[in-house]
């Protein structure tokens, strides 16, 4: 449950990046997962460089994040400027394919810089567990999880404030509703779109740094799966809707963690043997194995995505449906 919540917060922050960009230019920015990956990699490099200095661990991780954010902002800005802006008035399919292309380009740039190996984060933060119950086996939350949840919640709150309380925020909402008329109001639409990409990328940067610290590993292809799951989360909540992205992200994290934790038990071959024929041999050979173990965890996100698209294409909190595909 706690694992799911932590994961869910990360998905929510990444999903916000997808949904913001979609809301304003109706583009699914498939390269967003790669921005998260680059954030993770930059944070990794900084943390490795600073680890021997003996600074307090949270300062080092903070420095990693502080470096990742501007790096990703620059990437987000450049991607919009170079790849998407020239296609602003092209048919919807062209920028979508471009987004996939950008994602591949970014992956391979990262491959050149950080190698194709799985790289391990130095474990500089000493893991501390806080138990909810009195016993050692009760549910626990670690200091890293607390930090991730707190950072995510703060960022989500900050984003909502930005969108609903500032001049830039109202310009963003106006642009998403009617870009042409927004221009007539004196809003520089291109700047607003740039700002949206940059803000989304900075959220992605922090998410990337958090993922790296949490799992302790990074890889140049990590952004693909993470991005797809966060995208599914955004669709689950209703793409284009900020609150929906938060809800979808948290649900997605919970589904994945609980699915990984419990579906395996439910589909244990010995348990199935009692209800269905044909499992007895497997049960005797390996009583521990199950039909859908925790290694199926990545599947759940996509089962959810498919179910949402079939039964509620506009998402949980989505309202606008119709010609926007």
């Amino acid at each position, binding site marked *: 449950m706690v694992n799911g919540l932590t994961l869910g917060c990360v998905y929510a922050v990444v999903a916000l990046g997808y949904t913001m960009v979609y809301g304003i230019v109706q583009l699914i920015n498939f390269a967003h997962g790669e921005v998260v990956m680059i954030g993770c990699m930059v944070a990794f490099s900084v943390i490795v460089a600073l680890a021997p200095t003996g600074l307090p661990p949270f300062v080092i991780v903070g420095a990693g994040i502080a470096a990742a954010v501007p790096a990703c902002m620059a990437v987000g800005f450049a991607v919009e400027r170079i790849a998407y802006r020239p296609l602003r008035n092209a048919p919807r399919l062209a920028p979508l394919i471009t987004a996939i292309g950008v994602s591949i380009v970014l992956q391979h740039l990262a491959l050149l810089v950080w190698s194709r190996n799985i790289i391990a984060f130095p474990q500089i933060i000493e893991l501390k567990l806080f138990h909810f119950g009195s016993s050692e086996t009760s549910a626990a939350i670690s200091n890293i999880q607390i930090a991730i949840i707190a950072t995510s919640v703060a960022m989500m709150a900050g984003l909502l404030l930005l969108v609903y309380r500032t001049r830039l925020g*109202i310009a963003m909402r106006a642009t998403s509703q*009617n870009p042409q*008329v927004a*221009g*007539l*109001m004196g809003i*520089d639409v291109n700047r607003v779109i740039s700002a949206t990409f940059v803000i989304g990328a900075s959220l992605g940067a922090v998410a990337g740094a958090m993922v790296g610290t949490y799992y302790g590993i990074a890889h140049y292809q990590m952004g693909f799966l993470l991005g797809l799951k966060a995208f599914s989360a955004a669709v689950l909540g209703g793409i284009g809707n900020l609150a929906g992205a938060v809800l979808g992200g948290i649900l997605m994290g919970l589904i994945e963690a609980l699915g990984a934790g419990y579906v395996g038990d439910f589909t244990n071959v010995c348990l199935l043997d009692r209800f269905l024929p044909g499992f007895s041999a497997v049960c005797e050979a390996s009583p521990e194995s199950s039909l859908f173990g925790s290694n199926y965890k990545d599947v759940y996100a996509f089962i959810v995505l498919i179910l949402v698209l079939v039964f509620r294409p506009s998402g949980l909190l989505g309202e606008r449906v119709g010609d926007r595909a």
Partner: protein
Amino acid sequence: MSLLALENVEVHYGGIRAVKGIDLVVEQGELVCLIGANGAGKTTTLRAITGLAHAGGRIVYDGEDIAGAKPHEIARKGIALVPEGRGVFPQLTIEENLAMGAYTRSDRQAIAADVDRVFTLFPRLKERRRQTAGTMSGGEQQMLAIGRALMSRPRLLLLDEPSMGLAPLMVERIFEVIRLIASEGVTMLLVEQNARLALEASRRAYVLESGLVTLSGEASALLHDPQVRQAYLGE
């Protein structure tokens, strides 16, 4: 010097010339209307002035050629458009829509005073100030679109078909306000299919046909022009 002068303005959409070289002048403080049938190029002309459509020729505003400038740059020079179909922001409230109109301004007190003024012109908007614009009727949205344009304190106000799709009573109300704004000295260029109403409210008028100006002059004279009467006033 005229506030606005179009010199041989052309607009192409793909291979089609929607506006084929028109000359048009709006003097400081006057209400000029542009009438013509569907597809004559009226809306396109306004889109050219506001930078929404790419135009050839010269568009001289306040002594400066603004052809080719971006819509937000033109808006900041003091030209406001009430677009065809109203173009309110459906998910913003009335108040937020009005605030968008004042986006380029930072004088808070004067903005608040102007919001009050819009609410005096259109009391209905005040009743619904916290409602989202998409939930209002067409006439109320038209009021909002006009109010929003006034919030920028425009030096030149362009109105595109303000009577379109509205009930007769609402059309009356909208034109009352247009005359009131004109009497306060706001320069306006009005595009309208309801030629009689437009000509009665305006000082001068241009008649546009297939992308060309075919007639122009005092609005009162055009009202009695046999050609205009036959083609646009249904007589």
